[in-house]
């Protein structure tokens, strides 16, 4: 018996090493564009022109100092807008997805179909009418003008993703909670949300990325400099300081702009812990 187990174990260990190797290669390949960006950010124009692929020498540390100064003034706006979009989307989408998943009501299928259809509307067509709606509501050049339309745009996808996860949750959990006399909101908050932390953080990441990188909408609606978000601020920067002659500095600014999200990612991928949800499901 012991011998057989040892063999199984050895095969298992070998397989684990193989996994490590494969994942390392994949991770390397995936991270390559980021690495190239990081390398580029330490170069000056001469190096980028002559030897695009070479290691930076001399290393231009001053690019990072510039990047930091350039991004920090727009960082607050981007954080506030992205956070507001993210929170609003998660709350609204969770409520709606719960309704789609747990209630039966007339027009349910049609409504869900409409949501799906909204994902397919070519976004370019929506820009101008959306701009007009925002103007009518007096949202131009305000934070809400940035937050609300982006939230609305993010909702269909979020609802779709959340619903597909809520549907998979075992029914008995809900019934048990209901028998205990819990209200629907309590069921959502105390049963569904803890079980769906991974998918919530996925949706949050999706949302953060989209609103963090959104360039066109802020460009169209924001006029005051104090409201500029990161991509918009960087675009003005490229423009006003002739950064097209300094791609290295620009890359450094991009890099700095992605640091806050990187740190947040370290947090956000934490819920993907093996056994966290399964532990709850076992009970």
């Amino acid at each position, binding site marked *: 018996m012991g011998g057989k187990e040892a063999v199984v174990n050895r095969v298992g260990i070998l397989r684990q090493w193989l*996994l*490590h190797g494969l*994942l390392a290669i*994949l*991770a390397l390949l*995936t*991270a*390559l*564009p*980021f690495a190239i*960006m990081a390398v580029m950010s330490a170069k000056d124009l001469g190096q980028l022109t002559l030897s695009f692929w070479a290691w930076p020498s001399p290393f231009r540390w001053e690019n990072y100092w510039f990047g930091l100064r350039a991004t920090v003034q727009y960082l607050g706006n981007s954080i506030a807008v992205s956070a507001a979009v993210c929170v609003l989307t998660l*709350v*609204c*989408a969770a*409520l*709606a997805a719960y*309704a789609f998943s747990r*209630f039966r009501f007339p027009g349910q299928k049609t409504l869900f*179909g409409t949501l799906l*259809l909204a*994902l*397919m*509307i*070519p976004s*370019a*067509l*929506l820009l*101008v*009418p*959306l701009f*007009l709606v925002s103007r009518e509501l007096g949202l131009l050049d305000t934070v809400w003008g940035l937050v609300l*339309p982006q939230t609305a*745009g993010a*909702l269909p996808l979020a*609802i779709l993703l959340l619903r*597909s*996860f809520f549907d*998979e*949750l*075992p029914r008995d959990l809900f019934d048990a909670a209901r028998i205990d006399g819990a209200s*629907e909101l309590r069921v959502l908050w105390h049963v569904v949300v803890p079980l769906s932390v991974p*998918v919530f953080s*996925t949706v949050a*990441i999706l949302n953060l990325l989209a609103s963090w*990188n959104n360039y066109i909408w802020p460009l169209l609606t924001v006029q005051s400099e104090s409201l500029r978000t990161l*991509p918009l601020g960087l675009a003005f920067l490229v423009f006003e300081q002739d950064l097209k002659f300094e791609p290295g500095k620009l*890359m450094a600014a991009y890099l700095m702009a*992605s640091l806050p999200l*990187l740190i947040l*990612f*370290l947090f956000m*991928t934490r819920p*993907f*812990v*093996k*056994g966290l*949800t*399964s532990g709850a*499901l*076992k009970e």
Partner: protein
Amino acid sequence: MTSATDRSERWRAAGFLLPALAFFGLFVVLPALSALALAFFRTDGLAMREWVGTENFRQLIDDPLFWKSIRNLLWFALLTVPVQTLGPLFGAKLLYTLRSPRAAYWYRTLLVFPVLVPGVVTILVWQELYGASGPINLLLDAVGLGEHARAWLGDPATVVPAIVAIGLPFTGGVFLLIYLAGFLSIPPSLLEAAKLDGAGALRLFASVELPMLRTQIGVIALLSLLGVLQNFDNIQILTNGGPMNASLTPALYLFRSGFEFGQLGYASALGVVLLALCAALTLLVRWAGRRQS
């Protein structure tokens, strides 16, 4: 006949849906309707507006460029959707099988965070890679395949695969997280039961995990397809549909018609057709999915 509980459920559903629907109606449905209505006008979206009925649609059917863009789209979809659906599944399976949670954490971070790289930078890097004396061609030269070196984005035969390849190696990104969340929600009791039955790793994957991930696979295939349908900004920067319209997609054609050629009515008609196409496709996929299960 509705019972009291039914009615209360309706009210509760309405309450739950209200915030989302308010946003959705105001900022999506309203603009969308007003945009799509333009399909029945000849308009540049500015001052000129003339009712032409279904003229735009008739013109669309006769437009060889439209059909070419549809062909290109099929080509894009055929290449993109399978790799974007299966690649992250593969990555997620690897991560899930990994025993050490700490290693999994760091691999996961490495696989996901590059989505932070702005699109402009990715495009810059790949343009450099594809250049006539870029690394790819140099490599081909070095291994004696010099005659296969070419301007990858400038050749109608290679432009579509070259654009698709920009997502290499396809295993990371947000899709990976969706799959991972799916893997995590598989009840361990199921896996243990299967293991007790003596199922090997492959059997386990094929008969337990894969069926449990059906929803995720469907969602991601749909998202990937939608991505292909909607994506035009990358293509616009890289090739603007060229050379010889070999990378023109309907979304790009729509954008160019509406904003470059000043034919917003025509663009809206294209949008309507595209939308109908998508809806039909989704219905087909869902119908097929339902028949299978």
